[in-house]
């Protein structure tokens, strides 16, 4: 049975936004810290570090989840998607990101990466959601500057755009 010792660094390899990455982590290192400080990919933000604020939300094997409640060693061999994986490689924004821009769905941007990853998962599984359903998903995120009206509008507009396309 694999036992990774405390206080030692262990090799962790996984797929990040379609690209193989690797680095070393102690068992106690959070996935958020591994992404930001070891891999150097800083789009995923760190807020409360106990699963409440939602800023660190990422997709693990396609499922939206809190990056701060995962240890890096847990994602070995898995597929991780962060906000960097949303747009095109040429810097083009995704339809959801475009809708955020059009609807003033962000201001300081601290909560935005997590919200985008939640909605990326949710809209994929629920292509034509109702407003209450979108608000229920957003209850897992704290935004302290714009309020949620623009965010809800952006989510619904993206769903409608996907349906019309």
């Amino acid at each position, binding site marked *: *049975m*694999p*036992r*990774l*010792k*405390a*206080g030692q660094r262990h090799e962790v390899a996984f797929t990040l936004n379609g690209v193989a990455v690797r680095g070393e982590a*102690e*068992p*106690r290192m*959070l996935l958020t*810290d591994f992404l930001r400080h070891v891999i150097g990919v800083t789009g995923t933000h760190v807020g409360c*570090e*106990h*699963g409440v604020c*939602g800023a660190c*939300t990422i997709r*693990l094997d396609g*499922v*939206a*989840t*809190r990056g*701060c*409640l*995962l*240890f890096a*060693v*847990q994602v070995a061999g898995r597929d991780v998607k962060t906000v960097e994986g949303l747009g095109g490689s040429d810097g083009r924004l995704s339809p959801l990101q475009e809708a955020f821009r059009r609807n003033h769905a962000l201001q300081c941007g601290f909560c935005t990466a997590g919200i985008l990853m*939640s909605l990326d998962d*949710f809209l994929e599984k629920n292509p034509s959601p109702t407003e209450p359903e979108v608000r*229920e*998903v957003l*209850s*897992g*995120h704290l935004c302290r500057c714009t309020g949620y009206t623009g965010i809800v509008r952006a989510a619904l507009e993206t769903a409608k755009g996907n349906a019309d396309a």
Partner: protein
Amino acid sequence: MKPAPFDYIRAGSVDESLDALHELGDEARILAGGQSLAAMLNMRLVRPTALIDISGLRELDRAETRDDAIEVGAACTQAALSHRLSREGRHPLLEAALPHVGHYQTRSRGTVCGSIAHADPSAELPLCLMALGGEVLLRSRQKRRRVPAEAFFLGVISTACAPDEMIEAVRFPLPKPAYGYAFDEVSRRHGDFALAAFAAIAGPRTIRMAVGGVADRPVSREWPMLEGAALDDALNAFAWELRGQDDQHATAAYRRGLVRKVGRRVIEEAMRCRG
């Protein structure tokens, strides 16, 4: 907000987890979805020297009907149970309660058994287990035992699970014909911890209700069929017996008010839902 150091053990089977628990005892903690435990680790409210990760164990990722109960294995997530129940439409109480458990983004990893193991007094799943008179299936290297919900929850994040035991599964009894089920809770925001949560079961001749978020654990009461002022009196007595405390979220008096008013509303809804 970083955990103290720990060894990380990825269990390859239930037997391996039990061997590790046998060896390490209360030095170790079982890690499943981590939606309560990782937060506790980050805040250093717990400092185990080892984590035994069971989240990858297929043998525990199950939810199936067995002997008049839905038996949910220790690796089954809240989202997976929710999807299954909404497809089958077989458990009105759990279906009503599950959307209130944490958030979309935590139900995706958070397990049903993990919520039971954590035993937060305001959590919805311990409340449902209590209301339904369910059981917790515990296992150590030496033995298996079944503990009724009434005997499992001992206080704030405190349970009858021994240091060398893990929860293998929990059993939520299936709804009975001619019984009605209802759930509701009051919280500041959707997904926040409940100031008070209610699960009611109305039978042909009885009313049963469990209340969470007021006492140090979910508490249930059963009465003969009551109506009008008699029901108000029973709820008032229950509200006082729960001995709720003032805290930063609500006063004890407000919580008693919730037991009287919201508790009654949930009981009446359960009565209306009787088949």
